């Protein structure tokens, strides 16, 4: 059991941390969640019968831990599209991003609707693999591609709009 657990720590701790970081929006919270997930995995390992793959099981524990944590803590900021009725997971992912460096990335992410943020951050953490983002967030591949396309288009257009007045002045 201990060997199996150490193998999981070795193989999955980075994935768990990155998924938690993408959903929570800050390192300290992601660290805490990742620890919690590893403890839950250790407790659940004797009962794990392989009904789903090990990675699916671990990622679902991570997502659930993040959603519970986001439920407990109210969002630090309210995004512009909070008024619209949205999926629970998207609503709970409304916490603003807080990362120390570079400042541009957090500012950019915070402009995105909540449902795009985790996908966008995770895409760059996972070496731009759509498949990996789809697996980690448990979203269809097509949805991930759409989210990322929309997110990048939105941000690029916004940056261009911001540059125009500066150029004209």
């Amino acid at each position, binding site marked *: 059991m201990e060997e199996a657990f150490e193998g999981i720590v070795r193989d999955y701790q980075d994935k768990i941390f990155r998924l938690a970081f993408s959903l929570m929006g800050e390192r300290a919270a992601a660290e805490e969640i990742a*620890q919690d997930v590893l403890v839950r995995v250790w407790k659940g390992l004797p009962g794990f019968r392989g009904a789903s793959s090990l990675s699916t099981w671990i990622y679902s524990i991570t997502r659930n831990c993040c959603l519970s944590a986001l439920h407990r803590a109210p969002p630090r900021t309210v995004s512009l599209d909070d008024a619209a009725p949205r999926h629970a997971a998207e609503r709970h992912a409304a916490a603003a991003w807080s990362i120390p460096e570079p400042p541009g*990335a957090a500012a950019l992410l915070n402009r995105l609707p909540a449902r795009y943020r985790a996908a966008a951050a995770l895409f760059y953490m996972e070496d731009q693999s759509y498949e990996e983002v789809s697996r980690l967030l448990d979203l269809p591949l097509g949805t991930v591609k759409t989210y990322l396309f929309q997110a990048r288009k939105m941000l690029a257009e916004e940056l261009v709009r911001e540059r125009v007045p500066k150029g004209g002045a």
Partner: protein
Amino acid sequence: MPCPDFEELVREGRAGHAAQCAECRDLLEALEAVNAAFDAAFRGVAAPPAVAAGARARIARESCLRRPSPVPEILDFIGWAATLTAAALLLPRFLPQLEELLARLG
């Protein structure tokens, strides 16, 4: 020439329509800036060592708490020891009477 949609513009890159259109060139530049900012912020993000260390420490603490208490085992041992001692003390006292009873019946 009309501007292509965003997807096509990205596919073509700077050498395509953007080479003649300043607006589309700006959009591509902005996209590159977005990519660069996210790449710098998120590439190679890994779990800090504190994650695994903290989890192991919590597991060790919880293992200690969940270790079964030895008290029931000790009480069980004392009970059996008392029963056997009582049997060893009482049996010689009743043995002659038992033998007599068996002889009368036999």
